[in-house]
């Protein structure tokens, strides 16, 4: 399978060409979105931002969702689709406070991503630590790559 790298995994923010690199990555991202690639919803503008990786056995979905109660997350997997829904509430502070900055967002979210192959929905594992949700989705047995030995 062709794995398309959205942008180099190691960003170079230092050095004199840093700005160019930033622009280049932004352009690539826009081009991908226009081309309507399978994974063209890169930076889909949907909360939460997700990273998906894979190895031979599993897909790993990681999402940045700081400050939520993991019990209020609803995660479902069917065939090759994973859905993640939940709500992020920001606790109300005492009445007599004045705000200097208010940048943290609250609200509900509901996001579905499609994986390249089907997964074994029975054995999906979810962990929440330090504001990052990690899902481990074992690939379905029949879609796993097999090593074929050549007989001579």
């Amino acid at each position, binding site marked *: 399978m062709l*794995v398309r*790298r*959205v942008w180099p*995994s*190691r*960003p170079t*923010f*230092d050095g004199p060409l840093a700005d160019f690199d930033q622009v280049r990555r932004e352009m690539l991202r826009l081009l991908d979105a226009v081309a309507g690639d399978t*994974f063209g919803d*890169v*930076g*889909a*503008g*949907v*909360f*939460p*931002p*997700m*990273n*998906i*990786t*894979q*190895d031979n056995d599993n*897909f*790993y979905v*990681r999402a*940045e*969702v*700081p*400050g*939520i109660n993991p019990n209020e997350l609803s995660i479902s997997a069917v065939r090759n689709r994973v859905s993640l829904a939940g*709500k992020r*509430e*920001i606790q*109300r*502070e*005492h009445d*007599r*406070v*004045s*705000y*200097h*900055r*208010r*940048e*943290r*967002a*609250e*609200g*509900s*979210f*509901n996001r579905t*991503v499609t*994986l*390249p192959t089907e997964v074994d929905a029975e054995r999906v594992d979810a962990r*929440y630590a*330090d*504001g*990052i949700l*990690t899902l481990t989705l074992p690939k379905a047995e029949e879609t796993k790559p097999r090593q074929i030995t050549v007989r001579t």
Partner: protein
Amino acid sequence: MAKEARMDIQKTEKAGVPTVPEQTRPGAVYSPSVDIFENDNAITVLADMPGVKAQDLKIDLHESVLTLTGRVTPPNSGKESDVLREYQSGTFFRQFTLSETIDQAKIDAKLSAGVLRLELPKVEKARPRQIAVRTD
């Protein structure tokens, strides 16, 4: 209150920062989203720093400049290949200038679920006082 909570969260891109002291550590630097509010007794800072562990978070208050630095160790074991990449892991960095005098000994920081809550109590003399007017 409940009405606000029902709105969908808008996704915001992590903002890169041109840091004042140039970084020598490789990797990206991001600015965490913060809420800052104050009442008569304290200034409170809430910062979203997903992926930062308590031991990798540095809070520094020096000459009324508050510096937050949180390093994120990428979770990828190295054997995994990318399928979709929407966010990058890097260092969270942000600085604030605090106008009020802060009681440095009583600063309290708590990190839970990737959110830092920093309480900066004001020193006694910086607290506003209600002055009662006496009449004869």
